C-alpha cells in the first residue's frame, strides 16, 4: 500500500516537473504552454492566418474582470485568450484569439468597440510592476488594438454615413462654396469643429496603424508612448471570434532565454466594455527562444 502510494507521488512529481511547459496537446493544434513562448522566425507575420503561426506554441491566458479600480467590470465576459508569439530578433508579433459572438466596430453613443491589448514591463527587473497597468515609477508598455481602427485601416471612409448610412446632413460649414477650391482653408475650418483631431488626439478618423503605443504608471495614467516604434496590428473576425496580430518592437532587454512578463486584456464591445471595464490577465511568464531552438522541441 505504502509502495503504491510512493509510486503515485513519484509519478505525479515527474509529471509536474517535466511539465513546466507542456500542459497538454490538442490533436493537430500544437502544444499548449504554461508561459508565453516567443519562437524565432525571420519573417514576422502580420496576417493572423499566416502559416508561420502553425509552428508556434500557444498559451491560454485566463482573463478575469478588472475589479480593482472604479469603474469596475462587474460581470465576466471573455474568459480566455489564446496567445502565440513570434520574433525575428528585432520585433515581436503576438497573435491573440478569443471568442466573440458579435463584431462591434462602430463607434457611437453607448456603443463600444471590440479590442485587445498586450502589456509588458518597460524594463526587465526582479521587482515586477503591478500587473494592473503598472505603478508609479515602474511603467508598463501597452500596445492596444481596436476593431474600429482596423475597419478604418480596411478602408472605412471618414464620413458619418459610414456609421449612420441614412444620415441626412444639411450642411457642414467647412463644405461652404467659398472654401471648395482651398483644401487648406477647408481643413483648418474642419478642425475648428473637431478639437480632438486638431490636438492630434487620434481616437477616430484617418490613421496609419490599427494599434496605438502607450505607456502607463498605474490605472488612469495611460499616455501615448513618448517614443513610438511603429507598432502595427491586423485583426480578422471570422464570425465566431477575433484573431488579432499585434506587432511591436521586442521589449527592451528581452533576448533568447531571458524571462520577462506579459499581460493581456480584451474588451468586448457588445458587453459595453471600455477603458477600465475590461477582462484582463495577471502577469504571464514570457520566454524568448533562440533561433533554431524550436526544432529541439524546447517547449
Amino acid at each position, binding site marked *: 500500500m505504502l509502495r503504491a502510494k510512493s509510486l503515485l507521488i513519484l509519478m505525479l512529481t515527474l509529471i509536474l516537473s517535466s511539465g513546466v511547459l507542456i500542459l497538454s496537446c490538442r490533436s493537430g493544434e500544437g502544444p499548449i504552454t504554461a508561459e508565453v513562448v516567443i519562437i524565432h522566425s525571420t519573417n514576422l507575420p502580420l496576417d493572423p492566418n499566416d502559416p508561420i503561426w502553425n509552428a508556434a506554441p500557444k498559451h491560454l491566458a485566463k482573463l478575469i474582470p478588472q*475589479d480593482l*479600480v*472604479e*469603474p*469596475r*467590470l*462587474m460581470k465576466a465576459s471573455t474568459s480566455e485568450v489564446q496567445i502565440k508569439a513570434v520574433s525575428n530578433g528585432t520585433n515581436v508579433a503576438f497573435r491573440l484569439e478569443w471568442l466573440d459572438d458579435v463584431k462591434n466596430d*462602430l*463607434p*457611437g*453613443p*453607448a*456603443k*463600444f468597440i471590440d479590442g485587445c491589448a498586450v502589456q509588458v514591463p518597460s524594463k526587465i527587473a526582479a521587482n515586477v510592476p503591478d500587473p494592473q497597468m503598472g505603478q508609479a515609477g515602474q511603467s508598463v508598455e501597452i500596445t492596444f488594438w481596436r476593431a474600429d481602427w482596423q475597419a478604418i485601416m480596411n478602408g472605412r471612409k*471618414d*464620413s*458619418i454615413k459610414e*456609421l449612420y448610412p441614412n*444620415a441626412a*446632413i444639411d*450642411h*457642414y*460649414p*467647412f463644405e461652404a462654396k467659398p472654401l471648395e477650391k482651398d483644401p487648406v482653408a477647408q481643413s483648418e475650418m*474642419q478642425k*475648428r*469643429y*473637431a*478639437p*480632438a*483631431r*486638431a*490636438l*492630434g*488626439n487620434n*481616437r*477616430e*478618423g484617418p490613421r496609419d496603424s490599427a494599434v496605438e503605443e502607450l505607456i502607463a504608471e498605474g*490605472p*488612469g495614467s*495611460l499616455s501615448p508612448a513618448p517614443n513610438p516604434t511603429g507598432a502595427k496590428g491586423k485583426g480578422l473576425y471570422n464570425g465566431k471570434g477575433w484573431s488579432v496580430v499585434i506587432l511591436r518592437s521586442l521589449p527592451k532587454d528581452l533576448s533568447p532565454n531571458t524571462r520577462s512578463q506579459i499581460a493581456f486584456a480584451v474588451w468586448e464591445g457588445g458587453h*459595453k466594455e*471600455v*477603458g*477600465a471595464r475590461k477582462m484582463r490577465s495577471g502577469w504571464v511568464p514570457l520566454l524568448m527562444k533562440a533561433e533554431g531552438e524550436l526544432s529541439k522541441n524546447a517547449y
Partner: protein
Amino acid sequence: MARVYNWQIGREMSYWYPESRPEKQFAAVFDINKCIACQTCTLACKTTWTSGRGQEYMLWNNVETKPYGSYPLAWDLNLLDSLQGQEWQGNVYQGQTVFEAAPEGERVLGWRPDEHDYSYPNVGEDDCAGQIEKGASLDLPHMMWFYYLARICNHCTYPACLAACPRGSIYKRPEDGIVLVDQDRCRGYQECVRGCPYKKVFFNPMTGTSEKCIACFPKIEQGIQPQCFVNCIGKIRLAGWLSKPEEAKPENPLDYLVHVRKIALPLFPQFGLEPNIYYIPPVHVPTHFLRQMFGPGVDEAVKQYRNIAQDPDLAGLLALFGSTEFIVPRWKRQGDLVIGMSEKGTELIKVPMREPIHIRGAYDPKYNIARVNCP
C-alpha cells in the same frame, strides 16, 4: 470618497474629490416664465460650436417642454427612477445623492442613453400635462399646464462627469468654475456621459471623444455672456458670478436672485452636484411638480414672483436680463432706472423699469383716416 459641503442640500455629502471651489464660479439665472421655446438659443449654440461631423445630434443647449419633453429621452425620469423617492426635511436633503447611491464598482449612480434616445429632441413639445376639460379657466396655478425648460451644462460645483472619468480628463477651471473635457486627454470611454445626470456630455463618434458645453469661455474671458444668452429673444437669461451663500453680496445680480431673495433655484438639487444654472420656477404650474425639480424653495420663489408688481428691486433686476451682452457683476436701482455696472462700478447699461408707452389712436387726424391693425 471625500466629505464636501453642498449648500443646496444643506449638508455635507460624499464626493470623489475634496472640496475645491474656483476663485469665481460661472453661474446663470433662467427665468422660465419668459421662455417661449423659440429655440434661438439652441440654434445660436448649434451654429457656433456643434456644426462638425459627429456633432449632428448634439444639442449643448436645448429647450424641452415639461412635463413630457426630454432630450435625451427621459434623461430625468430614468435617474429619478433609479434614485427612488427621497426625502427633504426642511432645506436639508435626507436622501442619497448620485455619489452616495453609486452601486458597487461605480463612481456615480448613472445610466447610458442609447443612440435612439437622442432621436427625439422635440418629444412632448407643447404637450399639456393633461386633457383640458370644458369650463377650464386660467386661475393660478393652471389646472392643466406645461412649461419650457431651457438647459445647458450646469458647470456644477461637484460635477458627476468629472467624478466619473477614470482618467481625470475633465477639469473645472479654477479661474471661473467652467467644466471642460480635455480633448487631448479624453479617450472616449463615455463614463462622463453615463455619469452626468443632466446628460449634457455627448460622445462624438467622428473624433472618438466626449464633448460638452464650454460656457463660451472665449467670450466669458472677455467679459461677454455666452451665445445662448445674448441671442435669447425672450431675454430670459442672465450670466454672471455666484458667491458662496455666506459671502453673498446683494449688489451682485446672481447673489441677489439666488442667495438673498432665493427666487432662482437649482435643477434637481437632490442629485448632489450643486449645479450652477438657476431657474425662476414657472408660476402657473402646481408646486408639487416643481418641488421635485427645483427643491423645497419652490413655494416661496413662486410667491415672490407673483408679487413682483409690488417688488421694484426684483422687477428692476429682471429688467436687466438680456439688456446687454456684457456680464454685469454689479447692479443698483435708482427710482425707475436699473443700472448694470462693472466690478469697478463703471456703468455698463442703464435700463428703464418700464418702457415709455405711446398710444396710437384709432383715428389719424393728419390724414383724416382711420388706422387699421391689418398689415
